[in-house]
Each structure stands twice: as structure tokens, then as C-alpha cells.
């Protein structure tokens, strides 16, 4: 397992030589916390963490003032793009269509540029103008304290929905819950068979058929698969006890979830939102609430740092059964 400094260094290996030599010089305490590295054509090189941007100068010093920062040029972006795509754009066409590439280690690189449409929707992104390298941090054990709230007796599980605004650690939490559910905990419960539908290769960080993140020993991964398709495929072929998906939202997702529940499979999902009320009013998934499908809601925010568990709410009474606790440091 890479520590946070080695993790940062391994990620910037994917940047062109010139930027790599600058970014490797930034102070260690910043390396530990960096969440994103941003390359925008003609704009200052920056990193960000904790909701703040820092501009990087030629000596690797950070400042909130962009005046002395290194200006990213087209060459930097194209060379970096070649490196992150392993000189093989053809092998990443599907991912590029979705706006990102997953690199070794399971980190995601978002791509900005001219989007080319064809008969079947987005065909390609050309004239790449920006790259956003998101360092996905695996924080093992962050879900240990909340397992007792989502495990029913010793061999059951409550359908659970994690509600969180972006960048609050929901993917990190979901990944660790999946790992715990899959492995089981000694004396408490045996592991469940989990099917993980990882539409954006962010949870397991699959690279060349290998999960780069620990998602447990009883987990089957459907990588790059649409949630609605993945749920159905898992029901038909993988006989899971639990299906885990990130960021549900579409009507098709809701239909697939119904299908899973009819098959007696439990569900673990996340959704974007800042409160339970906000999520309940989303038209596409409102039905899931009216039918009381979810038995537990875990609500995250950043009030006490990334990954603050604001509360856990019971899905029947809608009353909180757990209050604020911050133990997720670093997130993806």
C-alpha cells in the first residue's frame, strides 16, 4: 500500500517531464493532502485540497496568488495526455467519450476540450484544453464505526443510501463499506457476496483487469458498466447478496433497483445531494422514497472536514440514529 507521499509521486509520474519535475518539489505536507492537480491551457498550474486552490511556481512553491505560477501550455497538455493514455488513445475511446481516463492506481483524469458529436452521441474529445487529475485516496477502516448501523443482526443488511455533496468522501466511504461487507468482520458477520457496478472506474479503480483499490474478497466488479445495465447483469449472472452502485440518479437506475429488490437483493448506493429533503424531491428517484426502499440514510458534509458523517437516519421513522463524527481524512 502506498503512503500518501508515494501516492502523490506515483500520480505525477503520469505528467509530462517538465511539470513532473516542478510538482515533485512541492512541500511534503501539501503532497499528503493534494486532491486535484489542474492543467488548463494558458492558465497557471494549480493543485487543490480542502476546497482551496494553490498555484505552483517553477520551484514548486505554492501560493494563492497566481502571478508567479507556471503557465501550462498546449505541449504540456498534449504530452501529459499521451502519457495518461499510455500512447494508446484507441484503447480509451469509450472512457474519453465519457470525459475521463482512469490511470494506474485507479485515479481519474477528467478531460476538457472540444466535444465531437456523432450519430450515437459523444464520439470524441479533440483539442484538449484541460486535464484534471484527481488523486483517489483509499482510506481503509473509515466505515468501521458505522457498520453496526447498516448490518441487521449478523447476516442481514439494511438497504442504504449515502447522501453527500461532491468532494465530501462518499466514494471513499462506499468503497470501504463494500470492503467491509465483502470481507466480513470476525465475530460479527460473515462476508456478503457483493456486486460492485463501477460505472466510472472510480470505486475499484480497475486497471488492466486488476482492482487497484481494496474492495474485498467477495466482490465482483462490473467495470465501466452503466448502473442500470450492471444491476440487471449482476442479478442474472453473479448471484449477489448486495449490489453496490455509486451516484444513482436516472430513471433507468430506479427501475433497475426495483428489479434487484424483487430478486431479494440488498442495495448500497450513493447520491449527490446536501440533505435528505433535497434528495427526496428529485423526480427521478422520488419513487424509491415513497416505497420506503432505503432503510438507512448516511448523510455526509464537510462541516468538520472531508468525510464528516453528519447523521445516519432510519428509513422508516426518518429519525436520526447517529450524529456527527469526522473520521474520513482525505477522500476521492
Amino acid at each position, binding site marked *: 500500500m502506498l503512503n500518501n507521499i508515494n501516492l502523490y509521486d506515483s500520480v505525477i509520474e503520469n505528467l509530462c517531464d517538465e511539470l513532473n519535475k516542478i510538482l515533485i518539489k512541492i512541500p511534503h505536507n501539501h503532497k499528503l493532502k493534494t486532491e486535484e492537480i489542474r492543467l488548463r491551457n494558458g492558465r497557471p498550474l494549480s493543485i487543490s485540497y480542502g476546497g482551496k486552490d494553490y498555484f505552483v511556481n517553477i520551484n514548486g512553491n505554492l501560493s494563492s496568488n497566481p502571478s508567479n505560477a507556471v503557465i501550462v501550455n498546449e505541449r504540456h497538455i498534449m504530452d501529459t495526455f499521451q*502519457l495518461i493514455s499510455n500512447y494508446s488513445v*484507441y484503447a480509451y475511446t469509450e472512457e474519453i467519450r465519457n470525459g475521463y481516463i482512469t490511470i494506474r492506481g485507479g485515479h481519474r483524469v477528467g478531460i476538457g476540450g472540444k466535444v465531437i458529436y456523432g450519430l450515437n452521441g459523444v464520439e470524441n474529445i479533440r483539442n484538449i484544453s484541460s486535464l484534471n487529475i484527481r488523486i483517489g485516496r483509499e482510506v481503509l477502516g473509515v466505515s468501521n464505526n458505522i457498520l453496526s448501523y447498516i448490518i441487521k443482526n449478523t447476516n442481514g443488511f439494511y438497504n442504504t443510501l449515502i447522501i453527500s455533496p461532491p468532494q465530501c468522501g462518499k466514494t471513499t466511504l462506499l468503497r470501504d463499506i463494500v470492503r467491509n461487507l465483502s470481507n466480513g468482520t470476525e465475530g460479527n458477520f460473515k462476508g456478503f457476496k457483493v456486486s460492485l457496478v463501477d460505472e466510472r472506474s472510480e470505486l475499484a479503480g480497475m486497471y488492466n483487469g486488476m482492482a487497484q483499490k481494496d474492495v474485498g474478497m467477495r466482490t465482483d466488479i462490473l467495470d465501466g458498466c452503466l448502473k442500470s445495465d450492471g444491476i440487471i447483469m449482476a442479478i442474472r449472472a453473479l448471484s449477489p447478496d448486495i449490489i453496490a452502485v455509486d451516484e444513482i440518479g436516472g430513471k433507468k437506475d430506479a427501475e433497475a433497483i426495483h428489479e434487484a429488490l424483487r430478486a431479494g437483493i440488498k442495495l448500497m448506493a450513493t447520491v449527490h445531494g446536501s440533505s435528505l429533503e433535497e434528495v427526496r424531491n428529485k423526480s427521478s428517484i422520488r419513487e424509491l422514497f415513497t416505497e420506503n426502499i432505503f432503510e438507512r440514510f448516511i448523510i455526509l458534509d464537510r462541516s468538520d472536514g472531508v468525510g464528516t458523517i453528519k447523521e445516519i437516519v432510519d428509513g422508516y421513522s426518518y429519525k436520526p440514529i447517529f450524529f456527527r463524527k469526522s473520521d474520513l481524512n482525505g477522500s476521492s
Partner: protein
Amino acid sequence: MGVLKSILLLLIFLTCSIIGYLYGKSFSLRLENLIILEQCIKILETEVVYGLTPLPEALSNVHKKGKVKVSYIFSEIKNDLIQNKRGGVYDSFLSVEDKLYNNLNFKKEDVETFLSLGRVLGTSDRTDQQKNFILVSNQIATQIFEAREEKNKNEKLYRNLGVITGTAIIILLI
């Protein structure tokens, strides 16, 4: 004295014949290497277009599957790509340019065709890559045709010319 002169004349004859033979041989070597290069490019096309194999691995596979006489070039391109963290594949293709001329007897047009592959390799989607492979394969096929014609025309000519030149020098010296 007579023996020494005979040895000298024999050496002159052998040298002229060998020069003629080697020059003639360069035509057949070019043809042979172009045919192997065409096979290697076909292997690379399969890896890229049908296997979607990442380029460094695809280049290694070409080295393993192709005839080493030419396919080692692909391994060297891969090593250059990885070791020097090149921004583009073309720079790595350029790094083997001298070997294409000196070790494989390629002509300028052969080298340019091969380098043109380096300009586009890995930079676009599968369909576009396939079009480029077809284009390069067609060009190489044309060059193979020309190389074969040249070989048929020149190989024997230069071999004979070497022998004749050697004989002519001997006659003059006698």
C-alpha cells in the same frame, strides 16, 4: 615473384567480386526486410485495431511475434518511449531512423513511410488507426513491388559487374 603477383591478382579479383556481390545483395536485403516490416505492421495493426492492446505492450508483442531481424526495431521504439517518457510516439520512431538506413538497407522512401506511421500511431480512435494502417500497408506494398523489380534488375547486374571489373583489372595488369 610470380607467386606473389598471382596472389595479388587473385586478391584484386576477389575484392571486386565481393564488392559487386555485396552491392547486389543490398537489393535483396531491402526486399526481404520490407516484406518482414510489412508482416510486423500487420501484427501491430491486429494488436491495435482488434486487440486494443496499449501501445507499449503492442510494440513488445510485435517484437516477439515478428522476425527478430526487423522486429527488434519495435522493441527499441518501445524502450525509448518508456525510458524517455516521450511526449509522442514519433520521437521514439525517429530514434531508430539511423538503424533503418544502416542495418536494414531501407531507402529514404521506406524510412519516410515507416516514420509516417509514428506520426499517427496511438493518437486517435480505432477506426482512424485502421485507416492509417491500411495507408501505410499500401505504401509498403508498393515499395515491395519496386524493390522486387530493382532486385531482379540490379542484383545479378552488380554481381556480374564485380566479377567483370575484377577480371578486367587482372587483364590490364597482366
